[in-house]
């Protein structure tokens, strides 16, 4: 072999080989890095497992911090100085949930495509064009930086960045290695992005465009019948109302409960006729998002122990890691226990030495669309008769593997200007007007009584929540907090017109005229928001249902989450007996369905005079007859009922609200269908327009029930014992990036849409994200369980170590320590000493 070739051949081969193994393959990371057993997928991330003891210097600290991580990975943090607690929280969040935090921040900033590629471009466009990032940035630019809450954010940031400064690429969480990028440095405004993300999750909901579409296709009388305003709620959150709380000073007909709902459908739609719109095609748009929650509390008089007790289980989408990270924080001025959101320093739901609090989503309509006419150049728009310039910024979205995408972000005085299916709208959303909710939680963590509690909530803007309260003195209360826009009811039933100066939106002259006595910003004053303190029944509850009875004079939404969970809570708490901690746990796990108890007798009545010759249908009916309406996994009846209910909804409405060419209109809310079942069995809506005969409720029930039994027969066979609910109804939870193998295996799940232990749909992808019950005695006692676990590292010991307990309805006792010695040595998995730089 020629000598030149003898050298060149291995040089070329080696260089080519190294080039080959050090470059990514499409979306896959460079093999030399990923398969390196010392730095790649086999090298666990920092924080994946817990060492017995770690000591480190953190320059941001003023005093020492001792962290004891227990067998569940829950940190019990003891700081010499309260100002150091956020730094410790930041360090812990970064160590356990770094990728989750990065993902959320990148979502809001429109920077997902930079690391995920073009597939994430729709998400980036959505978040940027809809103004989430800009609103958070503006809010942060306006904050009082001398406020302790902001200083806490800076400390929190320092804690995260201290962790990052010590992180080598070998110790990156697995997701970074898979996606081949490095963690971003944390900034204080990232916490505002996180809270904006949660506001979107919980309050970015509107049925207006769906209504516009309905109005282009259905007669007003039909819409009035099937989409009525939910005036009377069988179990409002505040049944006793607060005549003493709210003092109406303005003419009720403008926005009150009378005078508007009978004529608004007569108004022309913002857009005439039928048109394509992805938002308005959602047949479930009439229902609030499936995300909901339960909370309730009993005061001392209603409590078996004589101490107030609180329960809270927020319902969110199931994913791994979960939203929540449990902490126990102690410093001289503050001691607080509960669930934090990685990305923000304070406890969001939990308790301190004096009070406990929880939250559920308030289904207020806080997102309004206004059709807006842009001037020909696109640089300005007509608002209230004037041509007003828009704020327009060009943005380049970096995209992994391809050229950046350029977009324009447009803001009007009302809010961001977005295009929905060719039409320009300005949107008004309360979430755009806030951004410093971290201040609220900073103050809640330090509140000592109802006065402090309400003072903290005064600054709360979005997402609107029903905050439940108990304290060590035995008081109980509830406050629905957030920005409640003053607007006409028509704003919930279709997009408004930005050029119409008579239409009200927060801050508009019309709104000011409507409620001149109220704040000029156009929101209901905090004092007039629904709230109650020590109600006569001795308890409070909320489950996303309509908060107020009919005499609340302000319109804030046309429909709410179905009230049946609230009905059930009231049923359980109203019993003539005292309530214990165990009762609270049992109520959270309750799978009795108020709706099933109403609808099942209807099914049985439909067959009462029928000659049932099909043995399987007869057996299915027998199963329903023997059923107690509890959705346990070992029962057959829940499978039969659930299949029927899903097919019944579809069977009744699809023929009316789906066109032959496959277009779907928004379906009426479930409460309307149930009201028809109970009160109008001969309603025309039960008739199948595709048949010559005129069917009534019982006829349709028989037809649909037979079809649902047939479908179960086809799926599970003739033996009804194979139809057990555990075979049919399962919970799913993917990794937050939906990486295969990083989620949980589908597991049998009890409950249904309307049970307190909520588990909607057949494939259950949302439900209690955690369960907390706490009794404010001495000592404070409580139980908790998190969906998933403390760690965000796939495969780590605490990644999903609480799933089995969560599924089984078990809890872990809360250990709210007073000092480090309260944690038994056997319970301590790791001790972390954080020391200031001397």
């Amino acid at each position: 072999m020629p000598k030149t070739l003898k050298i060149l051949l291995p040089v070329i081969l080696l260089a080519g080989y190294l080039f080959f193994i050090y470059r990514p393959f499409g979306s896959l990371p460079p093999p030399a890095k990923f398969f390196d057993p010392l730095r790649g997928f086999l090298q666990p991330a920092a924080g994946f497992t817990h060492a017995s003891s770690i000591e480190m210097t953190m320059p941001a600290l003023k005093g020492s911090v001792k962290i004891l991580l227990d067998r569940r990975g829950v940190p019990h943090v003891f700081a010499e100085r309260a100002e150091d607690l956020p730094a410790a929280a930041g360090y812990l969040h970064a160590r356990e949930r770094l990728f989750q935090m990065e993902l959320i921040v990148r979502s809001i900033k429109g920077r997902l495509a930079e690391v995920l590629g073009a597939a994430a471009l729709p998400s980036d466009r959505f978040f940027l064009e809809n103004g989430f990032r800009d609103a958070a940035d503006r809010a942060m630019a306006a904050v009082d930086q001398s406020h302790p809450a902001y200083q806490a954010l800076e400390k929190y940031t320092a804690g995260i960045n201290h962790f990052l400064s010590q992180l080598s690429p070998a110790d990156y969480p697995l997701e970074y290695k898979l996606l081949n990028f490095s963690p971003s440095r944390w900034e204080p405004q990232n916490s505002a992005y996180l809270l904006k993300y949660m506001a979107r999750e919980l309050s970015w909901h509107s049925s207006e465009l769906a209504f516009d579409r309905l109005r282009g296709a259905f007669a007003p009388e039909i819409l009035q019948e099937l989409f009525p305003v939910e005036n009377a709620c069988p179990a409002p959150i505040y049944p006793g109302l607060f005549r003493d709380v709210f003092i109406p000073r303005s003419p009720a007909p403008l926005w009150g409960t009378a005078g508007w709902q009978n004529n608004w459908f007569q108004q022309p739609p913002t857009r005439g006729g039928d048109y394509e719109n992805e938002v308005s095609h959602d047949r479930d748009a009439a229902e609030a998002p499936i995300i909901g929650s339960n909370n309730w509390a009993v005061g001392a008089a209603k409590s078996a122990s004589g101490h107030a007790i609180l329960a809270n289980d927020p319902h969110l989408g199931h994913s791994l890691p979960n939203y929540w990270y449990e902490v126990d924080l102690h410093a001289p001025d503050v001691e607080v226990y509960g669930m934090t959101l990685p990305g923000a320093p304070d406890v969001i739901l939990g308790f301190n030495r004096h009070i406990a609090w929880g939250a559920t989503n308030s289904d207020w309509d806080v997102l309004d669309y206004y059709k807006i006419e842009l001037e020909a150049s696109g640089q300005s728009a007509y608002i209230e008769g004037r041509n007003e310039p828009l704020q327009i910024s060009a943005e380049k979205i970096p995209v992994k593997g391809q050229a950046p995408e350029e977009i324009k972000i447009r803001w009007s005085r009302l809010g961001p200007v977005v295009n929905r299916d060719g039409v320009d709208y300005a949107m008004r959303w309360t979430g755009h007007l806030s951004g410093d909710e971290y201040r609220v939680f900073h103050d809640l963590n330090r509140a000592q009584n109802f006065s402090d509690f309400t003072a903290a909530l005064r600054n709360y803007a979005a997402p609107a929540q029903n905050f439940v309260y108990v304290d060590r003195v035995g008081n109980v209360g509830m406050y629905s907090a957030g920005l409640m826009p003053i607007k006409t009811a028509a704003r919930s039933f279709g997009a408004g017109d930005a050029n119409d100066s008579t239409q009200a939106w927060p801050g508009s002259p019309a709104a000011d005229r409507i409620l001149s006595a109220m704040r000029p910003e156009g929101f209901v004053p905090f004092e007039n928001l629904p709230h109650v303190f020590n109600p006569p029944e001795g308890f409070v509850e909320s489950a996303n249902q309509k908060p107020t009875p009919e005499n609340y004079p302000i319109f804030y939404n046309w429909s709410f989450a179905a009230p049946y969970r609230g009905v059930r809570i009231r049923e359980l708490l109203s019993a003539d007996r005292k309530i214990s901690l165990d009762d609270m746990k049992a109520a959270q796990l309750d799978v009795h369905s108020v709706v099933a108890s109403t609808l099942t007798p209807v099914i049985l009545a439909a067959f009462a005079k029928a000659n049932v010759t099909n043995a399987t249908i007869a057996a299915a009916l027998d199963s329903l007859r023997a059923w107690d309406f509890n959705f346990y996994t070992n029962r057959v009846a829940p499978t039969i009922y659930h299949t029927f209910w899903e097919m019944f909804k579809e069977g009744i409405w699809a023929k009316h609200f789906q066109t032959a060419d496959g277009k779907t209109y928004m379906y009426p809310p479930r409460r309307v269908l149930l009201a028809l079942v109970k009160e109008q069995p001969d309603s025309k809506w039960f008739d199948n327009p595709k048949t010559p005969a005129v069917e009534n409720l019982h006829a349709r029930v028989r037809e649909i029930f037979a079809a649902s039994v047939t479908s179960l027969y086809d799926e599970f066979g003739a033996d009804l014992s194979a139809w057990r609910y555990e075979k049919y109804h399962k919970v799913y939870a993917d990794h937050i990036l939906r990486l295969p193998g990083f989620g949980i295996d589908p597991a049998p799940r009890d409950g249904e849409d309307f049970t307190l232990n909520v588990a909607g749909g057949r494939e259950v992808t949302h439900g209690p994200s955690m369960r907390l019950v706490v009794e404010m005695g001495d000592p404070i006692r409580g139980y908790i369980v998190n969906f998933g676990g403390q760690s965000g590292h796939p495969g780590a010991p605490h990644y999903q170590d609480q799933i089995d307990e969560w599924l089984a309805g078990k809890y872990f006792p809360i250990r709210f320590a007073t000092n480090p010695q309260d944690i038994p040595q056997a319970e301590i998995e790791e001790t972390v000493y954080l020391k200031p730089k001397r």
Partner: protein
Amino acid sequence: MRHSMQWLLTIAFIVLGGIFFGAIGLAVAGAAAGWLVNSGKRGFGMGASAAAILWLVVAVIKTIGGKSPQLLALAGSFANLAGAKVWLLVLISVLIAFFAGGLGGWLGGSLRQVMSKPASQRTM
């Protein structure tokens, strides 16, 4: 004796290179080993086998004796591999090391062979 020393030095190079610099370190360490044995063929063999064994040992220790036995199964499920098939991922790791160390060893050995010959015998 001479061979034992060569093996010992090769292993030392490979371990240091692999631990501190990954696959590129294995290649450089392989080149040093090849230079040591003054043969492209032997350099390939020694560099490749030492590198492959190092990666295999580390992977096995991490998977069976380490703190993260779940990671191999996790990566396996990500790659749609289950059971014993997850060890294919370790095999890929071993192959990457094998060729990095081997090609480095080939280059080192060849380089020294060429450079150590009298100028009159060089054809360059």
